[in-house]
């Protein structure tokens, strides 16, 4: 190959990886670093807004019987402060950080579904805009970030709660999508050689966090839908007079809410697990135990929600189970603390700015953990419940456990991301202001809580004797604010005027590429031979694999974007992933969802049809664009070896479909749990008789199984053939499978929709509310399977080869399976279990 042709190939490769800039780029770019940066910038702006709200709250509480804010304004501000910090700052910022860093850390060129990644960002942004638009209409939510029923229900809350519910639901859809993106990236796109035991702690953590988000955030989406149905349709999920229960909201909210704390803390801890070794010059001590600790913390966090409900009248034995679980998680969390201390002890720590924040984290989080153990005890929790002691505890955990690590991360990776140094002196001053200000603010709250000051009140009486400690807290809050302003200004200035960084070193893979990284991250795909690839760059790699990878990926392919696919456990090269390029389509569906939300908020229902149409057009255009890019010349195996369209779990699409199926099943399982909870708490269930349609229900089951059977069988046909083969019999079988599956979907919908929209009165009793909602959810599950089947039909008509359609049919089969499983749950909950009344 001549030098000119090599240069030409390099130019084409660079052109393939270039991203549009300006106005067009803003709306169409999908590359992970751009999207991750947007997440972080948006979340940080919202963090500053939430901080300003906190300052107003502290000024109001600075002295007793203050009238700086009225009670209504105070309620609105503390609701928006909590909501902003929890939903619009903490989670999205960490998702943005993961979106930016993970591909760099695991040696991939992008996340596996870049368009889905930006789709999630748009959902998050529009959700935030909907929530904050409440200020324009003087309808600011005021029921607290937890929005307990009945305070947030139709009897006590005005339309402001609808802003909260719609805005948050969009943001949570984004979070669930990001979790799918992150988990598939970690499982299937790690650099060759990055076996599970060599994976960065941040990747392990984000994998655990993704699992948590899928399992725990879906219940919040479901809870939000149920509350909105109570408010808009008049269902009775939370109406105690009609078989509902306000406590159901608390269960669903805290099934989400407690894991959410760990969704924030675990990535923070992972950041510390990278910062401390990098700034101590020593690998992390007890890596396997840290993996055990973070995984156990994630799992156990799912079982702690009831400790937020100790004062709701639960049986003592029930509470004791959750006290035991709450105590167990301290063992898991403590393991990580000992690993960090040992790393510091055995290394040579340098007191850099990230290290200062890490040490501040360890001190603050341990203190917050100790008060966490205290409130995990029923006896103490009963005393301090709803007092400022709890406010102090969770700010120690959240600011100590998440914000300090985020600030550490900002300084640790600043040079990597921007290519410039930050000024050290103002950064150190900012740290001390934040650290000292934090403890001055929140430590006195332990005292005010123990002395009897309740939380969520806009003022307090002089006689309570907590005026001084509140004044100290307010002074501390201003000190924190000064620190945050200094930190922000320093980073903004250094971004523009900072000295360029030279060669930086760190333990993980991202330090082996340039600062800032190029669009493709890695011109030559890295191979990993150790747990600290940033420090062990010169270790020899397997020559045959290196040669095969270079042949396929060294500044290649030049016409389209691609990254290697690797196996889950041992990260052996296993194929290739086609990475899509910039497009506007992922923006269209979120806009449709936002229009739908606005239509429901304004109760101008014709507009909702526009929203639905825009959403469907967005999905259809997206699918059309995808199939246009899956041309035969784009999916030819790279270097004749790395396949794009292998069958089953070797296809990246399989993982997306499997994740979507899990989300559907979790959502319906949450509805099932809700119905069962209401059933056992209701004196009458149902009011008269169950739905009782055994013939119809059996027919629906048969239709769903038929859809599953034909798509599964057709997907398996020709799976061992050559990748670009087209055989008439396979083509015919695929057409027949699609036709049968579509008929099955239509039959199931024809059977279900009349029942769903027929005689059931969802406002009559919680039983009918449950059945009505379960049937609606089932209709959506069937529509999802139908949509995937139509996508397979679309592929069949666009492509000559059989493999692409086979892959989409496999994905459709997974969604059919999810619809069948959810139907089993719906049937059991609506008809079978209500007959088993004690």
């Amino acid at each position, binding site marked *: 190959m001549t030098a000119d042709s090599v240069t030409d190939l390099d130019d084409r490769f660079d052109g393939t990886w270039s991203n549009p800039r300006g106005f067009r780029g803003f709306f169409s770019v999908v590359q992970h670093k751009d999207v991750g940066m947007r997440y972080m910038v948006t979340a940080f702006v919202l963090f500053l807004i939430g901080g300003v709200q906190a300052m107003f709250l502290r000024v109001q509480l600075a002295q007793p019987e203050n009238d700086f804010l009225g009670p209504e304004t105070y309620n609105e501000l503390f609701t928006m402060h909590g909501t902003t910090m929890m939903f619009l700052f903490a989670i999205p910022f960490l998702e943005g950080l993961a979106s930016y860093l993970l591909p760099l850390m695991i040696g991939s060129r992008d996340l596996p579904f870049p368009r889905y990644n930006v789709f999630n960002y748009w959902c998050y942004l529009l959700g935030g805009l909907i929530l904050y638009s409440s200020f324009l209409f003087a309808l600011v939510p005021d029921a607290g970030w937890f929005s307990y029923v009945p305070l947030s229900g139709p009897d006590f809350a005005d339309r402001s709660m609808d802003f909260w519910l719609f805005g948050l639901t969009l943001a949570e859809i984004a979070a669930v999508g990001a979790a799918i993106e992150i988990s598939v990236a970690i499982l299937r796109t790690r650099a060759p050689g990055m076996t599970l035991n060599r994976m960065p702690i941040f990747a392990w953590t984000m994998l655990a966090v993704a699992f948590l988000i899928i399992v725990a955030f879906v219940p919040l989406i479901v809870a939000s839908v149920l509350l909105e149905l109570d408010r808009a349709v008049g269902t009775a999920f939370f109406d105690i007079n009609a078989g509902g229960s306000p406590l159901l909201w608390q269960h669903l909210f805290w099934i989400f809410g407690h894991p959410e704390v760990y969704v924030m803390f675990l990535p923070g801890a992972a950041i510390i697990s990278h910062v401390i070794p990098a700034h101590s010059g020593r690998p992390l001590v007890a890596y396997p135990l840290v993996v055990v600790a973070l995984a156990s913390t994630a799992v156990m966090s799912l079982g702690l929600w009831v400790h937020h409900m100790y004062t709701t009248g639960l049986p003592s034995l029930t509470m004791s189970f*959750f006290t035991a679980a709450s105590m167990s998680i301290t063992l898991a969390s403590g393991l990580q603390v000992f690993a960090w201390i040992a790393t510091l002890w055995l290394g040579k720590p340098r007191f850099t700015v990230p290290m200062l924040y890490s040490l501040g984290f360890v001190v603050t989080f341990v203190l917050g953990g100790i008060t966490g153990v205290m409130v995990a005890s029923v006896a103490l929790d009963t005393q301090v419940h709803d007092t400022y002691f709890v406010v102090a505890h969770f700010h120690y955990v959240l600011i100590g456990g998440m914000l300090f690590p985020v600030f550490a991360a900002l300084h640790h990776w600043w040079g990597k991301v921007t290519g410039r140094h930050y000024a050290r002196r103002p950064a150190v001053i900012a740290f001390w202001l934040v650290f000292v200000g934090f403890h001055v603010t929140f430590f006195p709250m332990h005292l005010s809580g123990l002395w009897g000051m309740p939380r969520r009140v806009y003022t307090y009486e002089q006689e309570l004797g907590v005026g001084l400690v509140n004044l100290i807290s307010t002074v501390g809050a201003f000190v924190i604010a000064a620190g945050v302003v200094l930190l922000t200004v320093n980073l903004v200035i250094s971004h523009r005027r900072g000295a360029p960084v030279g060669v930086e070193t760190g333990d993980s893979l991202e330090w082996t590429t340039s600062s800032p990284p190029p669009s493709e991250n890695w011109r030559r795909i890295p191979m990993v031979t150790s747990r600290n690839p940033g420090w062990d760059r010169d270790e020899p790699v397997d020559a045959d694999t290196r040669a095969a990878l270079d042949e396929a990926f060294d500044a290649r392919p030049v016409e389209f974007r691609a990254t290697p696919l690797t196996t889950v456990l041992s990260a052996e090269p296993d194929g290739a992933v086609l990475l899509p390029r910039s497009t506007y389509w992922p923006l269209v569906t979120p806009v449709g969802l936002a229009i739908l939300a606005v239509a429901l908020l304004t109760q101008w229902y014709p507009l909702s049809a526009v929203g639905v149409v825009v959403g469907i057009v967005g999905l259809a255009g997206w699918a059309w664009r995808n199939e246009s890019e899956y041309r035969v010349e784009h999916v030819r195996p790279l270097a004749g070896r790395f396949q794009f369209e292998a069958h089953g779990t070797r296809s990246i699409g399989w993982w997306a479909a499997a994740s979507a199926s899990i989300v559907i099943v979790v959502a319906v399982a949450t509805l099932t749990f809700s119905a069962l909870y209401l059933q*056992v708490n209701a004196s009458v269930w149902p009011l008269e008789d169950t739905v009782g349609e055994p013939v119809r229900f059996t027919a629906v089951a048969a239709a769903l199984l038929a859809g599953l059977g034909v798509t599964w069988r057709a997907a398996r046909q020709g799976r061992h053939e050559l990748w670009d083969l087209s055989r008439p019999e396979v083509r015919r079988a695929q057409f027949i499978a699609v036709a049968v599956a579509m008929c099955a979907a239509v039959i199931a919908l024809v059977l279900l929709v009349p029942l769903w929209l027929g005689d059931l009165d969802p406002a009559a009793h919680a039983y009918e509310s449950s059945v009505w909602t379960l049937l609606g959810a089932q209709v959506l599950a069937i529509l999802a399977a139908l949509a995937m089947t139509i996508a397979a039909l679309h592929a069949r008509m666009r492509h000559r080869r059989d493999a692409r359609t086979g892959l989409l049919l496999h994905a459709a089969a997974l969604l059919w399976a999810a619809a069948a499983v959810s139907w089993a749950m719906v049937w059991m909950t609506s008809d079978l279990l209500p007959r088993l009344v004690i």
Partner: protein
Amino acid sequence: MRPSLRNESDIPVLSGTRLSRRLGLLGTVAFLLPSVTWLLSLSGSYVVEDFACTAAASADAPPSTAALRAILIGSNVVLMAVTLLAGIAGWWLLRKARSSDTDAMYAFFGWTVLAFAILYAFSIVLIGIHPLLLEVCA
């Protein structure tokens, strides 16, 4: 050779041989099992106690406390035994890794599974012991 849709031999393998599917599956199952048993222990204990007692109270019927206590203790004993079995699998993987001296993956699985088993078995004991100390449905 043109690749088929199931080519496992076209791409070179990093260490010369692919990870054994059987051992990989064993490691994965053992890795996940203790977490699953703990979740079953907690959720099962909660559902049995809370749902059964609440349903009885709602229906104004006396709960069968002796049967509930037996179910709670029995199920937790079984789940703890399964957790310990996973730990034994971890121990076996660890020994296998030491004998071959090459499979860092197995060693990693072995250590982590052992630690998981100990941690979760203890946590199941913490949950399962309570029906011996407190009244059921009180």
